C-alpha cells in the first residue's frame, strides 16, 4: 500500500501529522456531542442544555482555526508531498465540514425555545430523533474512515446518504400532513422541518468528510471514479 504510513525521518514532522489527526478526532467528538445534545435539548425541551450547546459551538470554531493554522504552517515549513500533502489538505476540508456541522447543532439547539412542546405530537419528535441518530452514525463513520484511512467505510457512508435523504423526504410529507390537519401546527412544524433539513445537511457534510477520506487514502477524486465507473455507489 502506498499509503501505509511508515515513520518519518524527521520525528517532529511525524508528531505534527499525528497532532493534526488527533485534533480532527477531538473536533469530531465535540461535534458529535453537539448534535446529540442539541437533539436531546430539542426533544426534551431542555433550555439549559440548549443554551449550553449553542455556547459550546465557539470551541468548535476555535478548533477549526487551530487546525487551519497548523495545516498552513506545515505547508509553509515542511513542503509536504504525496500522502502527507493529501493528509494536510484533507484535514483542512474535514475541519471545515465539521465546523459547519457544529453550526447546524447550534441552530438546532436555538430552535428549542421556539417550539411549543405541549402542542407538538411526540411522534413528530421521533422523526427528528431518528434523523439525528442516522446523521450521528454517518458523522461517526465518516470520521472513522478518515482516521483509519479506510476508503471502504468512506464509500459506505456515501452509499448511506440516500437513506438520510429518503428519511428527510418522508418527514417532510409527515410535517405537511400535520400542518394541513391543523394550521395552528404550522409554526412548530416549520421549525421542526428546518431541524430535519439541517440534519439532512449535516449528513451531506458527513459525505464530504467521507470523500476527503477517500481522497486521502486513494489519491483519487471519488466523483471521477464514479463517473468513470471505477466505483459504484449503488
Amino acid at each position, binding site marked *: 500500500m*502506498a499509503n501505509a504510513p*511508515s515513520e518519518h*525521518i*524527521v520525528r517532529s*514532522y511525524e508528531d505534527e501529522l499525528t497532532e493534526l489527526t488527533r485534533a480532527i478526532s477531538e473536533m469530531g467528538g465535540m461535534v458529535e456531542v453537539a448534535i446529540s445534545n442539541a437533539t436531546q435539548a430539542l426533544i426534551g425541551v431542555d433550555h439549559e442544555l440548549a443554551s449550553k450547546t449553542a455556547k459550546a459551538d465557539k470551541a468548535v470554531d476555535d478548533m477549526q482555526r487551530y487546525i487551519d493554522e497548523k495545516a498552513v504552517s506545515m505547508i509553509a515549513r515542511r*513542503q509536504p*508531498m*504525496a500522502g502527507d*500533502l493529501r493528509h494536510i489538505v484533507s484535514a483542512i476540508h474535514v475541519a471545515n465540514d465539521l465546523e459547519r456541522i457544529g453550526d447546524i447543532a447550534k441552530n438546532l439547539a436555538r430552535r428549542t425555545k421556539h417550539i411549543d412542546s405541549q402542542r407538538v405530537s411526540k411522534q413528530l419528535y421521533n422523526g427528528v430523533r431518528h434523523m439525528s441518530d442516522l446523521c450521528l452514525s454517518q458523522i461517526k463513520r465518516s470520521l472513522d474512515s478518515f482516521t483509519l484511512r479506510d476508503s471502504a467505510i468512506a464509500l459506505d457512508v456515501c452509499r448511506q446518504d440516500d437513506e438520510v435523504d429518503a428519511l428527510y423526504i418522508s418527514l417532510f410529507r409527515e410535517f405537511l400532513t400535520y400542518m394541513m390537519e391543523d394550521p395552528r401546527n404550522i409554526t412548530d412544524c416549520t421549525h421542526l422541518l428546518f431541524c430535519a433539513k439541517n440534519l439532512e445537511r449535516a449528513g451531506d457534510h458527513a459525505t464530504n468528510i467521507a470523500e476527503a477520506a477517500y481522497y486521502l487514502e486513494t489519491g483519487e477524486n471519488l466523483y*471521477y471514479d464514479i463517473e468513470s465507473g471505477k466505483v459504484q455507489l449503488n
Partner: protein
Amino acid sequence: MSVATDLLHAHNEAEETDIKMSGRGVNVFYGEKQALFDVDLDITENRVISLIGPSGCGKSTFLRCLNRMNDTIDICRVTGDILLEGQDIYDKSIDVVELRARVGMVFQKPNPFPKSIYENVAYGPRIHGMTRTKDELDELVTKSLRRAGLWEEVKDRLDQPGTGLSGGQQQRLCIARAIATKPEVLLMDEPCSALDPIATAIIEELIDELREKFTIVIVTHSMQQAARVSQKTAFFHLGKLIEEGSTEQIFTNPTDKRTQDYITGRIG
C-alpha cells in the same frame, strides 16, 4: 460546462508527444559492481524530465549514459540500448564528440574554462566548426548568452575571465556554453545545488524557457525543484527505475511505496 470543468477534463487526457531519447534495458557496471538494472525510460521532446532518488541510486549514472560520459570511466560498461531519435548512440558508427554536441551537459558545480566570458561560449562552436566568420561567431555567442539570461549582466565585460563571475552567473555561463553548440538535449546534473535561492530561481525560470527549444533531463536532490521545473519525474532506487509518471502524479499520488517513502522523507 464551465471553464474550470473543461480544464479539469482536459487535464485528464493523455498528452501526445514525441519521444526524443529512450533507454531500453539499460544495465551499467562499474567493474564487478552493477549500478543500473534493466532501465527502460522514454524522454519526451520539449519536456523537462527530473530524475530523483537517494544518493547512489543510479540517476546520475543514467544521465551520463545519455551522452556517453561514462566512456571516460575505464571500468564502466554499458549494455542495452540508448536511442537518440531511434538511433543507438552506442553504435560503432557514432562519433562521440558529435553526440556530445547534440546532447549537451551542465554540471553540479559551475566549471567555466579559465578563459574570457566570450571564449567560454565561443569554444564549442569553434571546435565544431559551426561558424565561418567572426561576425557569425559573435552573433552565436550573443544569442547563447541572451538565451541563458546572462547577456545584460556581462555584455560590457566579455573579455574578462568567466571565473570572475558569481556562482549563479557562472552556472548560467555554463548553460550558455552548453547551448551554444545547439544541442537537441540538455542534461543537467544538479545544476542548482551550489546556488542560492535567487540564482536557483533564475536558473529554473531559464529551464522553463529553454524547454521550448530543447529537451531537458535534470538530476536533482531537491524534491521541490523537481516538482517546480519538470513535467515528468522518474524515481530511481538501488539502481532500478521504480516509478515514472507525470510530475503531478508522482508528487501527489505515487503508486509505489518506495517512491512515497522517499519523497515524503520516510524510512523506506
